[in-house]
């Protein structure tokens, strides 16, 4: 039983959505996704709903209770996963594969602009006994430690990071929802936040909601003539103690990618994948994730990227959208942002500079201080 994406809708992708509450953003994204799925009625056509969110982002305890009604799921089967939206796609994939569900809706929303003390809230995710008492001033320091370890081990230079930033802003300028895209932005001219990370290396936050409708092969075509098939979805968490994780390489992304590739029967990703949307919430992470997803050998992504291999129109375009550096990070929506862009490219809704759009890989990481990644392989 194949699992297809038959509807995608998004709303927001603005630094601050001032006029609408998170509920209203969810509703609007859902309306659009259901319209995209041929006018699907969530009250009668959907078997279950899955929402990816995290209470501390919401500022609401047991925020699961707020998930159903804005997406048409009141008094229906709804559950929440504390994770990236792409993990919810994994849930839907399993549910449909089981044969018990034909249509599953996946939702994620984020309103970082509602959080007054974002740095403090992010520190709640660190170990309360071994890390939090250190009272680090800036959460980005944790990413900087990874950046240094990676750059030192694999001989990655700051020029390589310059190239990632330049590519993101250039590609993002063609993506209408990439509000932070600023072609010509010069990384070396921005101030250092936590060495080696400069302001331009760090994606800003953005308010957004994305809803995705998934359906079994049996019913998919009754909603959409051009479903995009989920050929594999896998996720992995390395370890809860930062001290014990690999600082130089995201093993979780490697593990998630290998799981998804196995499901999708992809033996040589660098040859079989046409394009990729990966997490680049820090510039160096794009290089790491390209390597973790086996699109380049370890330590080689920087050089290949600087040579144009991963640019729009290149051998294997990565982040045609500009990624999080151009669109911003909408908390747990991020994976669905990457997914929705890839789906639009594959369906031809977005005219992107890519030769092969029949197979794509999508990746999301949950950001510092997590060691969790999700990968999905898509096919048409």
């Amino acid at each position, binding site marked *: 039983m194949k699992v297809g994406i038959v509807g995608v809708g998004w709303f927001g992708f603005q630094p601050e*959505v*001032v*006029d*609408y*509450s*998170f*509920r*209203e953003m969810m*509703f609007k994204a*859902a309306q659009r996704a*259901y319209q995209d799925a041929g006018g699907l*009625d*969530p*009250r009668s056509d959907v078997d279950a709903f899955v929402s990816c969110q995290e209470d*501390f982002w919401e*500022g609401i305890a047991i925020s699961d209770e707020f998930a*159903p*009604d*804005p997406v*048409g799921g*009141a008094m229906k089967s709804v559950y929440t996963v504390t994770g990236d939206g792409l993990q919810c796609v994994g849930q839907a994939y399993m549910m449909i594969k089981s044969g018990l569900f034909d249509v599953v809706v996946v939702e994620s929303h984020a*309103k970082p*602009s*509602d*959080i*007054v*003390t974002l740095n*403090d*809230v992010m*520190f*709640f995710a660190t170990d*309360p*006994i071994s890390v*939090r*008492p250190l*009272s680090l001033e800036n959460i980005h320091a944790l990413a900087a430690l990874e950046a240094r370890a990676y750059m030192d081990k694999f001989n990655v230079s700051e020029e390589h990071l310059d190239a990632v930033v330049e590519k993101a802003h250039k590609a993002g300028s063609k993506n209408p929802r990439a509000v932070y895209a600023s072609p010509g932005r010069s990384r070396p001219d921005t101030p250092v936040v936590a060495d080696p990370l400069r302001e331009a290396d760090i994606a800003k936050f953005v308010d957004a909601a994305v809803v995705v409708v998934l359906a079994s092969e049996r019913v998919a075509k009754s909603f959409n003539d051009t479903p995009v098939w989920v050929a594999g979805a896998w996720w992995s968490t390395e370890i809860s103690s930062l001290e014990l994780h690999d600082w130089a390489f995201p093993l979780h992304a490697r593990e998630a990618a290998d799981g998804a590739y196995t499901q999708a029967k992809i033996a040589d990703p660098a040859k079989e994948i046409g394009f990729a949307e990966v997490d680049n919430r820090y510039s160096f992470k794009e290089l790491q994730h390209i390597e973790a997803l086996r699109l380049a050998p370890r330590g080689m992504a920087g050089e290949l990227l600087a040579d144009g291999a991963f640019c729009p129109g290149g051998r294997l375009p990565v982040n045609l959208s500009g990624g999080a550096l151009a669109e911003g990070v909408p908390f747990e929506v991020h994976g669905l942002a990457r997914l929705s862009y890839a789906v639009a490219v594959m369906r031809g809704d977005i005219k992107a500079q890519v030769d092969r759009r029949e197979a794509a890989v999508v990746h999301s990481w949950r950001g510092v201080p997590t060691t969790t990644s999700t990968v999905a392989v898509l096919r048409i």
Partner: protein
Amino acid sequence: MTGATKPLNPRGTKYERADFPVFEFPVVGKARYNYTTGEALGRFLAGLKDGRILGTYCNKCGRVFVPPRMYCSYCFREVDGWVEVRDEGVVVTAVMSYISATRARLEKPVAVGVIKLDVPGRTFDDHFFPGLMHYICGATEDDVKSMRIFGARVKAKWKPPEQRTGSITDIECFEVVRP
């Protein structure tokens, strides 16, 4: 710390005798939020400042939403418009609370209840109705504990206009209407 010893009482050890290794660190981090009210609740709060309770309605199912939503949760469609509901109604359920939000014992217990609000020209069952949860004033402890308060008519006691801020607390309480 003396280390764990065999419990004196095999069926359980009283907590004051146990030797819990609890680590205390200074509180690190503050979670502060500035919730966007959005279209529906934004207009609702603006209404409260004016001394009015506003709701939205769905023509397909006839439901009225107070507090308002811009969509009908049941029909999954945008609501059709706004309606001003009356600032009075009946008590559906109520309890006496003897502790504060921080669980400190209150000197004087308070009554908390759910009020089904009147909407001219419309009737609602007890399953779904426009209503608010609020304090109930003018009832005795016994009125509430005996549940005689259920079904009683109550009316909003508003703060003076100059003290209203556009908050649910612009209504001080719902006061029992004596016939």
